[in-house]
């Protein structure tokens, strides 16, 4: 378990360092996720300890957002001033985005059970 946690931290560290060094528009942890993913593909299995470490981190993902979310209280004044436009933009845009992305994926995968030609080529190991 300790080795798995170390591996996760190391992936994040590598991600943060490379993102900062190259000025990439991606956050370090997302790049770290790519590295861990590449490791899993190379190994073609999930080690049991990593399995446990990742599920304990992910099982209470919402909790991890609490400290940052409390920060909204600092901006209450500014948000109150423009409350109507802010809420309208967030409500309309969030749901439009969600439907656009979800519906597109569903429609494109339902329409063609067979994968598109270029995706099929990519899918060869």
């Amino acid at each position, binding site marked *: 378990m300790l080795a798995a946690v170390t591996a996760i931290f190391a992936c994040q560290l590598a991600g943060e360092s490379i993102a900062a060094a190259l000025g990439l528009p991606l956050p370090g942890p997302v790049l770290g996720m790519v590295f861990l993913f590449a490791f899993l593909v190379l190994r073609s299995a999930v080690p049991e300890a990593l399995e446990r470490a990742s599920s304990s981190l992910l099982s209470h993902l919402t909790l991890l957002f609490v400290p940052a979310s409390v920060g909204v209280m600092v901006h209450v004044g500014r948000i109150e001033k423009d409350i109507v*436009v802010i809420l309208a933009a967030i409500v309309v845009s969030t749901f439009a985005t969600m439907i656009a992305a979800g519906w597109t994926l569903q429609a494109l*995968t339902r329409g063609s059970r067979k994968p598109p030609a270029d995706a099929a080529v990519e899918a060869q190991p």
Partner: protein
Amino acid sequence: MSEPLAGLGDIWAYLAASPLLALTLTLAAYLVALAVYRRSGQLAVLHPLIVSLAIVVGVLVATGTTYDTYFEGAKFIHFLLGPATVALAVPLYRQWDRIRRRALAIAVGVVAGSLTGIATTLTCAELLGADHEVLTSLAPKSVTTPVAMGIVEKLGGLPSLAAAFVLITGVLGATVGPVVLTLAGVTDERARGFGLGTAAHGLGTARALGESEAGGAFAGLAMGLNALVTAILLPLIWAFLF
């Protein structure tokens, strides 16, 4: 070394200087919120994040504690967000075969989602007359916090205000999103996760993980891709428009 603590005030001062108080408050608030959510039959408006927030903000306001003081301790929980994002590689890996087969649909879907988000935000702000700083800070609200803040900084908005918008978006998406997806006829669990991750970043991903592991994997993927796509598209669109 340490003197015995005299009165209640001293104990309070001592505790306030350690992260223990903020950490315990955060964990306890979350546990209460989880219990409330389960008791309510998972009512959307009683989402654990909303109830946790209400409790923590209530305690901070009641005790006159500033956010900076609270965060000084709570940052240890906040820190775990990074490793948790890395850990999303595990569900992603388990879904890899399905993701590969849908590579084109995924690429089209995330670009469609990103453009829809930018276009609808611009339209709403234009129609209702938001000032430019607010509009710029709103634009990347579906993108995970660190990227959204980076984009907004480049475009001349307020990064910390952007972070607040990102969180409001995440809470809204994670609570009401699943209902909206159902109403819109998006029933496939992977497509639902994909929508949640694109529109509501990590909070949407947390919600999608609660629905199914497959949905969670697609949500995590969508969150990462939307961060990338929006970080590229938004500055281009802004350069063209303003």
